[in-house]
C-alpha cells in the first residue's frame, strides 16, 4: 500500500473533524449574529423614542437629547453606533444635537485616541466618526491618517475630510491618490474633494501635473465638474499630450463643460480620424456642450464620418446649437445620423 493505513485513518479523522468544526462555526456565526442583534435591539429600545425625536428635529426644548446623554455602559456604545449611522442622513440642528450627545459620551475624544489603535476597524471607524461629528480640530490627524497602512483607514480619513470640508486638506487628499503602495481609491478622493469648496482650484491645477494618471484624471474631472476655469490651460495640455487615454477623454469632457470659444480648435483637432475613437466621440460631445457656433463647420463635416455613432453625436451637437446649428443640418436630411438625432430630439421635446 502506497499510503499506510494509519496515515489514512489519521487524515480521515482530521478531515472529518475539520468538517464538524466548520459546521459548528456556521452555527456559531449565525447564533452570535442573532443574539447580538437581539441584545442591541433590547438595549436600544428605551432610547429609540428620544433618538427619533432628536433626529426628526422635534426636540425643541432639548429634553430628548438630554435623555440620550444619560446612557451608560453597553447601551451607550450601541447608542453611539446608531447616532453615527444617523449622522450620515441628518443635517442642521438635529445633527448638532446628536454630535453634542456623542461629545458628552466622550465618543469624539475616544475616536481621537482610536486613530492610533492597532485595530484597523477601530481606526477606520474613529476617522469616520470624527468626520460625521465635523470635528474640524482633528483635520491634521485625519490628514496623517491618509497615509495609514490600511486602505480602509485611508478611505475613511478621506471621507471624514470631505465631510468636514476644510480645503486645507485638498492637497493631501489629491496627493494620497498616487501614493506608492498606499494609494487612496480615486472615487473616495473625488467625493471628498467635491465637498471642499472653491478654495481647491489651485490644488486641482497642480494635480493635473502629477506623475500618477489617476491623480491627473481626478483633478481633470473635478475641474470640469466644479467649473474651475483656472485649470483650462492644464486641461488643454492633458488633452493634447497625456499618455493615458482615460485622462485625455476626461479632459475633453471637462473642456466641454467650462471651455471657451478658443477651445473649439483643440477639440476639433482631436476629432480627426487618426485619434482613438473614444476620444473623438468625447470631443464631439464636448463641442456640443460648449455650444460655440465656430464648431459648426467641423461638426457638419463629421456628419459623413465612417463611424455612425460619431456622425449621430455630431448631428445631436448641431441640434443643440440653436438656429445656426439646425440650419447647418439642411441638406443632410437623408443621412440616418441626422434623421435619428432629429427623431430623438423630437421625442424628448414631446415628453418634456
Amino acid at each position, binding site marked *: 500500500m502506497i499510503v499506510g493505513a494509519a496515515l489514512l485513518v489519521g487524515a480521515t479523522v482530521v478531515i472529518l473533524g475539520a468538517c464538524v468544526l466548520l459546521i459548528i462555526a456556521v452555527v456559531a456565526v449565525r447564533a452570535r449574529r442573532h443574539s447580538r442583534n437581539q441584545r442591541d435591539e433590547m438595549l436600544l429600545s428605551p432610547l429609540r423614542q428620544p433618538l427619533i425625536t432628536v433626529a426628526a428635529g422635534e426636540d425643541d426644548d432639548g429634553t430628548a437629547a438630554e435623555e440620550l446623554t444619560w446612557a451608560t455602559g453597553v447601551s451607550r456604545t450601541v447608542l453611539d453606533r446608531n447616532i453615527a449611522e444617523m449622522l450620515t442622513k441628518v443635517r442642521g440642528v438635529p445633527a448638532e444635537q446628536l454630535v453634542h450627545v456623542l461629545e458628552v459620551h466622550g465618543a469624539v475624544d475616544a475616536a481621537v485616541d482610536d486613530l492610533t489603535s492597532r485595530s484597523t476597524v477601530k481606526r*477606520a471607524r474613529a476617522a469616520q466618526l470624527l468626520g460625521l461629528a465635523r470635528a474640524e480640530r482633528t483635520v491634521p490627524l485625519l490628514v496623517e491618517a491618509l497615509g495609514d497602512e490600511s486602505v480602509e483607514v485611508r478611505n475613511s480619513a478621506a471621507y471624514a475630510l470631505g465631510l468636514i470640508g476644510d480645503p486645507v486638506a485638498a492637497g493631501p487628499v489629491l496627493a494620497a491618490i498616487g501614493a506608492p503602495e498606499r494609494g487612496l*481609491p*480615486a*472615487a473616495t478622493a473625488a467625493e471628498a474633494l467635491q465637498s471642499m469648496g472653491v478654495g481647491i482650484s489651485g490644488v486641482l491645477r497642480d494635480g493635473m501635473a502629477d506623475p500618477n494618471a489617476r491623480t491627473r484624471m481626478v483633478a481633470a474631472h473635478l475641474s470640469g465638474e466644479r467649473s474651475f476655469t483656472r485649470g483650462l490651460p492644464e486641461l488643454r495640455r492633458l488633452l493634447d499630450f497625456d499618455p493615458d487615454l482615460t485622462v485625455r477623454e476626461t479632459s475633453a469632457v471637462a473642456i466641454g463643460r467650462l471651455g471657451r470659444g478658443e477651445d473649439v480648435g483643440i477639440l476639433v483637432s482631436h476629432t480627426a480620424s487618426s485619434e482613438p*475613437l473614444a476620444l473623438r466621440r468625447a470631443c464631439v460631445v464636448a463641442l456640443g456642450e460648449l455650444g460655440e457656433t465656430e464648431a459648426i463647420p467641423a461638426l457638419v463635416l463629421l456628419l459623413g464620418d465612417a463611424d455612425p455613432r460619431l456622425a449621430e453625436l455630431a448631428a445631436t451637437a448641431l441640434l443643440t446649437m440653436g438656429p445656426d446649428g439646425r440650419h447647418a443640418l439642411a441638406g443632410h436630411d437623408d443621412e440616418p445620423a441626422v434623421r435619428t438625432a432629429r427623431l430623438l430630439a423630437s421625442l424628448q421635446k414631446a415628453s418634456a
Partner: protein
Amino acid sequence: MSWDGFVEGLRSFVVWSMDATAVPIIIYFILINTSLLLLIVLAYLEFRAQQRRRSTAVSWQGAGLAPGVSLLVPAYNEEAGIVMAVKSFLTLRYPRHEVVVVDDGSSDQTFARLAEAFDLVQVPRELPHEIPVRATVLGIYVPRDGRTRLVVVRKENSGRSEAINVAINAASEPLVAMIDGDSILEPDGLLHVTRPFADDPTRMVATGGAIRPVNGSRVVSGRIVRVEMPQTWLPRIQLVEYLRAFLLGRTGWSRLGGLILISGAFGLFRRDVVVEVGGLDPDSIGEDFELVMRIHKRLRDEGRDYAIEFVPEPVSWTEVPVTAKVLRNQRRRWHRGLWETLWAYRTMLFRRKYGRVGWLALPYYWLFELIAPLLELFGILIVPLALALGVVNVPYAILFLVLAYGYAVLVTLSAMVVDEWAFHKHDRWRAVWQTIAASVLENIGYRQATVWWRLEGWWSSLRGKKHVWGVMTRTGFDEDAA
C-alpha cells in the same frame, strides 16, 4: 478462454493499473487538495479584507467618478420574463445606465411584448461596426417617451455571442455589463461591481460579480424579496457548487491576481477594451472565458498595466437547471468551452510575460479543472472493479473514499462559513441544514454524473462534433417562488 481465466486476467490488469497509477494519483490528490487549501486560505484573507472594508464602508452612491454602464441583454424567446427583467434593470440604483436588449431573432413574442410595454418606435440609426457581426440587423427601437434609457435591437438569429457583439456596438456608455435576460440583479449590484472602476479608473478593465441560484426564492417585480433554498435537490446541489466556485475559487484567484474567468451571467468590462480585442468570439463555446483570456493576452503582450477583479458580493441571481437533461447539456458545454479555450491559449503557459496567469492560473485550470474528471472517472471505474475482484482491502478503500469525499465536503463547508459570515443571505435555519446535506449528497451520484457529462463535452470537441445549443427551460419568475 474460461471464466476463471478471464477473471484472473482482469484481476492482473486491475492490479497492474493500480500499481502503475497509484503514485501519480496520490501526487495528484495531494496537489489538488493543497491547491484547494491554498485557495481557501487566499479566499479567507480576501474575505477578511472585504469584511473589514464592509464594516468600515463609507456611503458611495456613485456620484462623481462612477462611469456610465450599458447593460447588454441578449434575448432569445424570452417572452415570459423579458419585460419584467428590463423594467428591473432600468430601475437599478445607479447614476447613469442604459439597457440595450438584442432580440436575437426570437420566434415568440419577445419583441412584441417589449414594443407594447415600452411603446417602442423605430429609429433610422446605423449601428457602428466596431465589432464585426455576420447577422443582419433588422431594426433599432427606442421608447416613445424619449426619456427611458432603453435601446432594442432586432436581428436575425445568430447566437448569444453575436447578439452581445451587436449590443456592444449599440452601447453608448464606457462600461458594458453582459447579463442574461433571465438574471435578476441586486438593486445595488451595479454600484458594487463598478466601484473598482471608480477607484482605479485608469487600470481596471473588467470585474465579475458573484452569481447565486434564484430557484425557490420569492421574486416580485424583478426583485428578490425573500431568499429561499431551491425546492429540489438538483438545484440545491448546484447552489453548493456556486458557493464554492464564487466564494472560494474566484475570490482566491482575484486575490492572487490571476482571475481568468468571469461568468457570462454577469460580467462588467471596459467597452473600449472589449472593442479593441474584437468582442466575443461567436465560434467559441466558452465565449466568456475566451474573452477574458484574449484580454489578458492582448494587454500583457502590449505590456500594459491593467487589473481584473472579482467582487464577491452577490450581484446577480440566475435560474439553474432543474432537470438532469438541461444540466447535462450545460456541463458538456462548459467543459468543452474550457478545453477549447485552454487549448487555444496554450502558448501562454509558463511564459514570463503572462505572469501569474501563465504560471499559476492556466496550469491550475489545465491540471485541476480540465483533467480532473478524467482521473475521477478512472477512480470511479477501477475502485468498484477492484473491490469486486477482491484486489483491494475493503476498509482501506472505504477510508480512502471517505477521505476524498470528506475533503470535498470540507471545501464546501469552508465556503458556507464564508457565506454565513459575510453575506448570510438565507434567514431560515432549515437552509443551513439543507446546504450541509447538499454538500454531502453532491458526492453520491451527482458528482459522478457531472464527471461523465464533462468528459462527453471534451470528447465531442476532440471528435470535432458541432456543438448544438440546448434549450434552457425556464420556469420564469412571478409573484411566487421562482
